[in-house]
């Protein structure tokens, strides 16, 4: 059973009209890291996921969603 993680980062960022660089600055990471998380190429660590949730004032489950697939 493989678990892939999807996220709503791009939508949430667009709602606040933040650029990737704006979000990266708030999180203290590089813009490339924000882009890699958004495109699903990189799954953030738990501390970074909690920082994201705090930045958007949402729960982690409202940002990230796990999809289980048989592999």
């Amino acid at each position, binding site marked *: 059973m493989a678990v892939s993680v999807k996220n709503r980062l791009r939508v949430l960022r667009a709602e606040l009209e933040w650029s990737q660089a704006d979000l990266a600055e708030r999180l203290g*990471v*590089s813009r*490339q*890291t924000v*882009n*890699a998380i958004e495109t699903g*190429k990189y799954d953030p*660590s738990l501390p970074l996921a909690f920082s994201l949730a705090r930045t958007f004032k949402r729960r982690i489950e409202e940002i990230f969603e796990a999809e289980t697939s048989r592999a």
Partner: protein
Amino acid sequence: MTEEDPSPNPETPVDPLVTHPASPFLQTEAPAPVNYASPPSPPPTPAIYSTWVLYRTQIEFGLSLLAYLMVLVGSVVVVQANPEADWRYFVVVLPVAPAAFVIWLFVRALARLDELEKRIQMQAFGFSLGTTALLTFGYGFLEGAGLPHLNWTYILPLMAILWGLGTAIFKWRYR
């Protein structure tokens, strides 16, 4: 009988509410709009200061490399002028101090990377180490078959080049 226009000039405003002598109202000026300006922005940061903040690591790195080269050239010159002196061993190892500072800066820069950048660097170092091992072993076999012997000091530049190449490859993969 002349035809009299009952309506006044449409250009002139009709306002009996305030123009009539018995009117209790007074014509007043509309209040001037108040400009709610943004709070004054802080003075622009001097360019030299922002350069220092943005490129501090690079500047420190460049300056310590320069210090290393200066101490290296200095120690070589001093030792060549005094080849028989007892203290030449101390002078020869002097460049190790600025070199150690360069390594400290490098480790500090690695520690300051974010989690994805650290992962990219780990993969790039692994790529560099593995490819260097492959190339040196391969050339070692070729030396056994008769190719000329190469100096060991080529290994570090080779690793550095492959590390740069690995960083570019793995950065591109996370784009």
